[in-house]
């Protein structure tokens, strides 16, 4: 027993203490935690729904690619406008995202290379260009490469306050306001275009035969993805890919219709956020990584549960009723 405690101490794993493990993470810095949870949910839910479409289009890693390739867009936009404000950064990201998409389409259209290879070529090159620019103009670019790569959800409560106030919690941090605007915009667009997205994802040839411009839908989706990714970058960094892929991948075990897939993916995004922030606060590790980790564990558990349900013949959850 003593030996085990010694090992745990060496690994810096705290000994189980219900108060310390379950409650303290939420009460210690309650105000800050509220902003972190809100931010995680405002990023996680739009990412989850967007990720569903990406996965159905077999572009699950498009988010990962875009999250890397927006870097040169951010740097160039900064060099032009000398401003790290929201609009120039969003604009730079959107242009970079569309350039990425155009390059991927160009490579797959004009060569024998398939989409995955074209993606790999495009995003690594653009990311390298971004790193090159950051370092070449390091003196003039106040972009924190570490922050872009890994994100700092913990900084959200400390960020510059916006003009808005939220009762006893005081001023709303600017990133939360930006994320809320992004979430409303993204969910609105997904709702308005839901059936166009559905039909172009399921059967692009048919969609085009009735006159829907599947190519325009594709580019629109990539533009929205770029904005979502750059909004998330500061808080969760490149792990935005996890927010895009994991909730939908978890939800598809239990959903056979789009509505349910979206609903469950949103729920799983929220539960992963809560579990991750809890884990981060308890073990004092980066919350973004903890959220991604929680999402991954959640996926594994959900897979197990779905296999068990099917084994027991519980078709209600997995089967046609969905």
């Amino acid at each position: 027993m003593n030996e085990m405690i010694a090992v745990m101490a060496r690994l810096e794993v705290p000994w189980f203490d219900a108060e310390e493990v379950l409650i303290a993470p939420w009460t210690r810095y309650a105000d800050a935690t509220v902003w972190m949870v809100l931010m995680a949910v405002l990023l996680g839910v739009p990412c989850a729904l967007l990720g569903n479409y990406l996965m159905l289009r077999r572009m699950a890693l498009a988010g990962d690619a875009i999250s890397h390739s927006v870097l040169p867009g951010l740097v160039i936009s900064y060099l032009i406008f000398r401003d790290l404000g929201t609009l120039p950064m969003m604009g730079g990201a959107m242009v970079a995202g569309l350039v990425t998409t155009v390059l991927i389409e160009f490579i797959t259209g004009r060569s024998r290379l398939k989409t995955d290879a074209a993606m790999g070529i495009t995003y690594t090159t653009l990311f390298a260009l971004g790193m090159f620019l950051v370092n070449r103009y390091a003196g003039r670019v106040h972009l924190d490469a570490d922050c872009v790569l890994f994100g700092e959800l913990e900084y959200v409560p400390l960020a510059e306050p916006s003009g808005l106030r939220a009762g006893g919690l005081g001023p709303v941090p600017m990133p939360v306001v930006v994320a809320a605007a992004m979430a409303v915009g993204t969910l609105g667009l997904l709702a308005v275009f839901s059936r166009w997205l559905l039909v172009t994802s399921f059967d692009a040839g048919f969609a085009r035969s009735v006159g829907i411009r599947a190519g325009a839908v594709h580019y629109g989706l990539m533009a929205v993805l770029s904005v979502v990714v750059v909004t998330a970058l500061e808080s969760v960094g490149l792990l935005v890919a996890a927010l895009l892929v994991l909730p939908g991948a978890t939800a598809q075990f239990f959903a056979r219709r789009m509505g349910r897939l979206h609903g469950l993916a949103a729920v799983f995004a929220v539960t992963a956020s809560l579990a991750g922030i809890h884990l981060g606060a308890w073990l004092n590790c980066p919350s973004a990584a903890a959220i991604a980790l929680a999402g991954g564990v959640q996926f594994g558990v959900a897979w197990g549960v779905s296999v068990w349900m099917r084994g027991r013949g519980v078709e209600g959850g997995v089967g046609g009723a969905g």
Partner: protein
Amino acid sequence: METNSDREPPAFECHDVSVSYDRKPVLYGIDVSVPGGSLCGIVGPNGAGKSTLIKAAMGLLPVEGGWVRMFGRPLDEVRPRVAYVPQRTSVDWDFPVNVMDVVLMGCGGKAGLWRRPTAADRELARESLEMVQMLPYADRQISQLSGGQQQRVFLARALAQRADLYFMDEPFTGVDAATERAIVTLLEGLRAKGGTIVAVHHDLTTAPEYFDRVILLNMRLVAAGPVEEVFTAELLQKTYGGRLTVLSELALRAQEARARRGV
């Protein structure tokens, strides 16, 4: 019918259509005209460009030179009158939708996909499913369907488009005999109501029985016209090359079948 087609422009017409994949030409200068009210099969060996012709007609592939008209107009002007049935294997049947969702995609065309499905859309979708005897499967998840059922769902989606001209890419591939029979009856029903069907078809033995016109294709147009004139040993040989005995036997059998039907 003949007087009708004299007055009206052909349901489908293309002139000098060429298509290339990756700079390799697959179709050269195709000239085809299909009058309204016909059941037309596109026949030819593998790699002859049969599906390509349909995709080019629907504007899904870039056409080099030439033009395509439906009812005498460019496709964009008459899109609601034209339905396209892609190859069944071109989509992911694990997609999270049920049979009803797929058929609803056909209701109201582009504009219909802009709004939520209405009660009228659902009624139309149910009627279309009934026509292919798939109504009992309306709530089935599409991954639970057999190949023949998948094909019938695709047909129901096209029927929900209430079109006058249907392009079908291999509607008989991978379906059981009963389904094949049901589909043929359905297509004949559409023709009886003045509809036109252009379908890619693989099986030479059934082609003269199912269709009243054929397009013989092998990268170039070999021949196109009524089955009686075009489905001959000589032209089939030109389409498929070599293998003389099989082809002449087929043509002979087709002639006998027609004689029996009193054509």
